[in-house]
């Protein structure tokens, strides 16, 4: 290509486009995370007969930005005897692994940073990496509360990862792909438009596992405030704490996106809309659909947080191992059977 008389190799243009896309996704992603906290505080506030943030900006709309600025300039306390390299790195690993998952999420038809054929697997891999951040934080802090929180979290995350992985196998059987765009398209072709209806067992298992994976109530044991004070990030302050926070909310966003994409139809629209409207319009409409579903799932997170008490550690593990895994396995077998029956292969 030739711009202003300078020849630019196509791969450089490619990289520039990729960088632009990434900048857009990270910027918008972080803004969403910031406003997810505002959304949460408002929703829970109103559920608890109070108003939530109101002071900074109209209706407290600038509160997340004020919080960010505060955390950015806060003192960064590193406890004595802490394992410094690990202590430094843990929040970065946690945040980066959560954020990188955004690169495979299709926000609307055709917009995805990396359209890889193992998108779902990549997200699982990244969320496993996030567990390293947690364990490292718990270990490096040299505090008992952090350590207990780190251990709890590690075993919780890996236990529920199995349940989550198995809960999505049913979706994979129905869609025949691990690529998230293909999964959405498969749902468009499907009569009900979403897999949540035939895969209701898988969806149920997925919801529980998603709550546990992101350490939210009723499974927020690693950071159980009343027992372990703040769990693995007890010793973290300032911007390192903010990175954990960002990571956690990004993970929630990712989980909500997976729920939206794999079970609720993502940006999929009925064909009579896509056939009759101009392309940019139905793509925008699709993005709107996707975001509505994502925020509906986020709302579920908040709703549950305002309603339920917290499980005990052994009960949490029992639910994961004794209830969700058998359920998910049974779901796989039954999904396979029905699929074979429909295809008339029996």
């Amino acid at each position: 290509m030739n711009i202003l008389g300078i020849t630019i190799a196509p791969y450089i243009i490619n990289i520039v486009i990729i960088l632009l896309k990434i900048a857009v996704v990270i910027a918008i992603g972080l803004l969403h995370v910031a406003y997810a906290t505002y959304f949460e505080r408002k929703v829970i506030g109103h559920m608890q007969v109070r108003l939530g943030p109101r002071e900074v900006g109209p209706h407290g709309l600038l509160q997340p930005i004020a919080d960010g600025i505060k955390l950015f300039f806060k003192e960064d306390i590193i406890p004595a005897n802490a394992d410094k390299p690990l202590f430094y790195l843990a929040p970065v690993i946690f945040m980066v692994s959560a954020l990188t998952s955004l690169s495979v999420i299709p926000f609307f038809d055709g917009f995805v940073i990396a359209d890889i054929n193992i998108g779902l697997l990549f997200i699982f891999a990244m969320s496993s990496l996030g567990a390293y951040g947690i364990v490292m934080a718990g270990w490096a802090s040299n505090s008992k509360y952090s350590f207990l929180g780190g251990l709890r979290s590690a075993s919780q995350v890996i236990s529920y990862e199995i349940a989550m992985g198995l809960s999505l196998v049913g979706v994979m059987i129905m869609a025949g792909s691990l690529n998230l765009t293909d999964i959405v398209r498969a749902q468009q072709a499907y009569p009900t438009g979403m897999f949540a209806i035939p895969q209701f067992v898988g969806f149920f298992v997925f919801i529980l596992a998603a709550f546990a994976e992101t350490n939210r109530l009723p499974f927020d044991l690693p950071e159980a405030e009343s027992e372990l004070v703040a769990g693995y990030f007890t010793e973290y302050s300032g911007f390192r704490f903010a990175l954990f926070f960002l990571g956690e909310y990004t993970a929630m966003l990712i989980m909500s996106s997976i729920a939206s994409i794999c079970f609720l139809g993502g940006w999929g629209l009925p064909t009579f809309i896509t056939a009759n409207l101009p392309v940019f319009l139905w793509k925008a409409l699709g993005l709107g659909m996707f975001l509505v579903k994502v925020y509906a799932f986020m709302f579920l997170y908040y709703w549950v947080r305002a309603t339920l008490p917290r499980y005990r550690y052994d009960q949490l593990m029992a639910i994961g191992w004794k209830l969700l895994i058998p359920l998910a396995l049974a779901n796989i077998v039954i999904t396979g059977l029905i699929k074979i029956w429909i295809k008339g292969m029996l």
Partner: protein
Amino acid sequence: MCPLENTFETRELTLSMGPQHPATHGVLRLVLDLEGETVIKCTPYVGYLHRGVEKLAENRTYTSALPLTDRLDYISSMNNNVGYVNAVEKLFGIEAPERAKFIRTMVAEMGRISSHIVWLGTHVLDIGATTPFLYAFREREVIMDLFEMLCGARLTVSYPRVGGVRNDVSQEFLDKLYAFVLDFPSKMDDYETLVTENRIWKKRTVGIGVISAEEAVNWGLTGGTLRGSGVNYDVRKHAPYDAYDKVEFDVPLGKNGDCYDRYLVRMGEMRQANRIIKQCIEKIPGGPPVLSDNAPELDMSAEGFRKLTPEMSLEHAYLSFSGGYETLAPEGEVFSSTEAPKGELGFYIVSDGSGRPYRMRVRAPSFVHASAIPRLCVGHFVADVIAVIGTIDIVLGECDR
């Protein structure tokens, strides 16, 4: 690193929980020995909030020692005041007028509701549910406002007086209270919908911190903590003071003595307290709210301060509180106990015939209950320790005194 020969010893983790911990309800400190997540030893340490209330009382007149009792169980200062003035009245051999008795019963039950509401909110918050906490504080606010209307103070009320109460209740106050009483059961239903039949809540509390009836008695537990084990002991029923013999109420009892039963008992108590307040408002007799002969005459209500008469001057007020007018007490000793929200609150007062107590000792239920924490916690998980602390409902102001 530790030497090789020690490497294979099982090591427990010693975890210090409190005094600065979100779930120890004040400044209780528990040192937990953990094996994995199981508590194998639990040692409570108290005294972080010791102010020497009992000793301070020895240097004050009987009237001016009253505000000290506010600071015992600061969640339910009204009940402490009632307990104290009952003990002093017993020492003096006087009895408050009927109207005062009804008022005291009424405000004591209001104190019980406000105390139990704080218990409910914090207990449920510790287990992880945030919403009932804010619901509970909404109702507590109403009671606080009523207290403010009654005597100008919200938390440390010092409203009852030896020989009566400080000032009479107004009709406006009674009306507002009655409106609250009619409304409160529906609010209770709100809490119960969120909590009582919640499966997670039951999983966290049923079978946790079990104590049998016999053991509970031997540990000296009282109040809701004892009644959760099924022991029917309530000072209000067994040795009625104030107007408790003139109102009808039931004593809710548990069966299993676990956290869930204690929870149910306290929830039942709130409904009964509501019932008592309602009866008090309906049955309240006329007459003076204070014995004018025996009690220091002081109108300390907001209006009283504004129109000081010559005979009731600021000087008069100062003297009677600083001990200028000492009412001499008969020699002797008394023990009198009342049913405070936390359990049986006893005051033991020794008098040497002067105007000040020779010795005042407080039998604080929280202190006794704190001693039972190890018994209830050992063998459970760390998370259950939180449930147990919440369920026995201790206040460290009373425990450490």
